[in-house]
């Protein structure tokens, strides 16, 4: 074995496919990355281009209470078929994140399905979201609605290549994030 930093594909590379949704709800650069497992379960994370992860921002608060009647923390699933999970559409809010510069961002589901869990670790340690947005700083785990063709879940989502094209275009237009 070589003495080098290069290694075999990571856990994410081995088991997941990366999908992207950019400029959520028309808000510039608010990009999400959906990690789709080969067993169809999806993990919602911030894409590396999301404003929260830029310019050394710090997080003041993360709130899973998205409305008077609904807190993502109250989500409870039971049994193998995950009964009881809150049903999500593509634009269902998962949480609201407020940074120390008072900027507020809403993180969205991006896919249709049942909410399995939200990441409570980031409530106690928001830095996780900044340091490891693709792993320990994940936002939520969702069981997609369409069971057979996982492809139909990812309709409307960008592949990694398409995402990188979007980034390239942005850089050329020099959009501030």
């Amino acid at each position, binding site marked *: 074995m070589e003495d*080098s930093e290069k290694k075999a594909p990571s856990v994410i590379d081995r088991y997941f496919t990366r999908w992207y949704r950019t400029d959520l709800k028309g808000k510039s650069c608010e990009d999400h990355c959906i990690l789709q497992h080969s067993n169809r379960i999806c993990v919602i994370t911030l894409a590396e281009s999301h404003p929260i992860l830029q310019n050394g921002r710090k997080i003041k608060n993360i709130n899973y209470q998205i409305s008077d009647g609904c807190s993502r923390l109250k989500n409870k699933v039971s049994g*193998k078929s995950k009964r009881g999970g809150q049903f999500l559409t593509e634009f269902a809010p998962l949480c609201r994140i407020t940074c120390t510069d008072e900027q507020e961002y809403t993180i969205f589901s991006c896919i249709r399905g049942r909410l*399995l869990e939200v990441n409570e670790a980031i409530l106690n340690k928001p830095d996780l979201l900044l340091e490891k947005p693709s792993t320990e700083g994940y936002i939520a785990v969702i069981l997609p609605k369409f069971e057979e063709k996982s492809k139909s879940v990812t309709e409307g989502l960008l592949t990694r290549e398409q995402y990188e094209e979007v980034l390239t275009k942005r850089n050329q237009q020099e959009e501030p994030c």
Partner: protein
Amino acid sequence: MLSLKEKDRPIVGKLLCAGCCVRCVLRFCCVGTCSAYRRSYEDIHKELLAFISEESSPQPHDASGEEKTDEPPNKRLRIDEGSTEGSVTAAQTDSDICPVCLGVLQDFCDPTFAKQVSDAVKNQQYEFDSLVLTVSLPAQLSVREHSCWLHVKKEIREKSMCLGKEDVIQVKDAFKWAVQGKIGQELGAAVLANSSCEVSVGFMHPETEEDCHFLANTCPDCFKPTKNKASIFTRMAVVKALEKISEEKFSRHYPCPPKKTNTRCTALDTTCLHTSVFIAGRYNKFSRELPQTPWVIDGERRMEGSVEELIAAPLLSSFRADGFNFSSSGREDVDVRTLGNGRPFAVELLNPHRAKFNRTEIKQLQETINQSSDKIRVRDLQIVTREATSRMKEGEEEKTKTYSALIWTQKAIESTDLEFLANIKDLKIAQKTPLRVLHRRPLAVRPRLIHSMSSIYLDRHHFTLKLCTQAGTYIKEFVHGDFGRTKPNLCDLMKTNADILELDVESVDIDWPPAIPD
């Protein structure tokens, strides 16, 4: 000779009048000797006729006759004399099919039918030295039996006697007594009350299927609606309803004695079933490209072969079984090897046509499995009881397993960086259901123990980690953390990103099945 008594005389007469077959007559006289039912129809008939033509007299009848009743002699039933009771031999209806057993105790008790059953069994080529005979009768026979019993009860009640329904010999028993001798003879096997080989004979009678229907109106709560198109008139439901319904209500809805029919029962195909045989052992898996069970998604086979198929195939053919169920003490992933003594497993062979194997033959089977593929190896192969297989799953939380894992670390390490691992004992971890199995397992948090660890330094980014853990621990997730959902994990302990490149199971610490010395 039949052991009939004085008190049976009126019963015999009444039943023969109603058109009952001679064996049903014996049943209602509570004749409990098997040999009586084996006699030929004509034989029994002759003796019954002789019996009822005798007067109630001081001369005792044949073998019995201890009773001398003080009752006045009954109206005698004379042969061929028109009497108020009706003639016994005159055919009152066209058919001579017994209205109670619908023919089951008539022609089906002949040696020819017994031979038919035996031949059907021989064709299926089972090996056995004993068998149990089971008989299934159409539900409406219970209704007819009940009707006949009420009919007889009425008669003897007038003589202040009593005939419990339990005292009457059941049709099933009479049939078995009549045929099992011949069947046992033909098959060269003992017919017992219990055996691992079951021969099932069934009858149906479509003509009278509606006989039961009135019970649904009188006792609706006995009949539960069924999911598929199966009839709600199961034997059990009908029997239950008959227990509940009053005599008076029954008599209003159903004739007592039961009416004769035009057809007799038809026999269903004779079926055989051998109880499952269980084969246990321990298996090794040497391939990193072999699933334990067939890997099929949406009807498509994703990877060829599986541990269970490799083990079961030779067993299926030697035992000539219809199918199998494979279970084991835990499982390993496709890409994980199972080394050491191997993992305990048990195969249930369904309906084996051959079940007796001696030690040498089992050893031979083990060799065959081992020769068939270099991807697996089997040891300690043996036949076990069904009860013994529960040993495999017992104490699943208390058992331990040891593993060897090839670890990659993101930060560069020296061998001294690994020393602390050996000092960690009984580390408590909490594992949320790993994402990779979350699609088929409930979401839960599992507390587990890492009992001990040791390491072998390989290079600045690799080492071998040996662990002894509580059963049910997800090793891969302990190493890479599974998005932080296993806490603490190896990344936390080593303060670096880490990943698992290879995993081997070194031992499954369960002392079952017993080791078989080579």
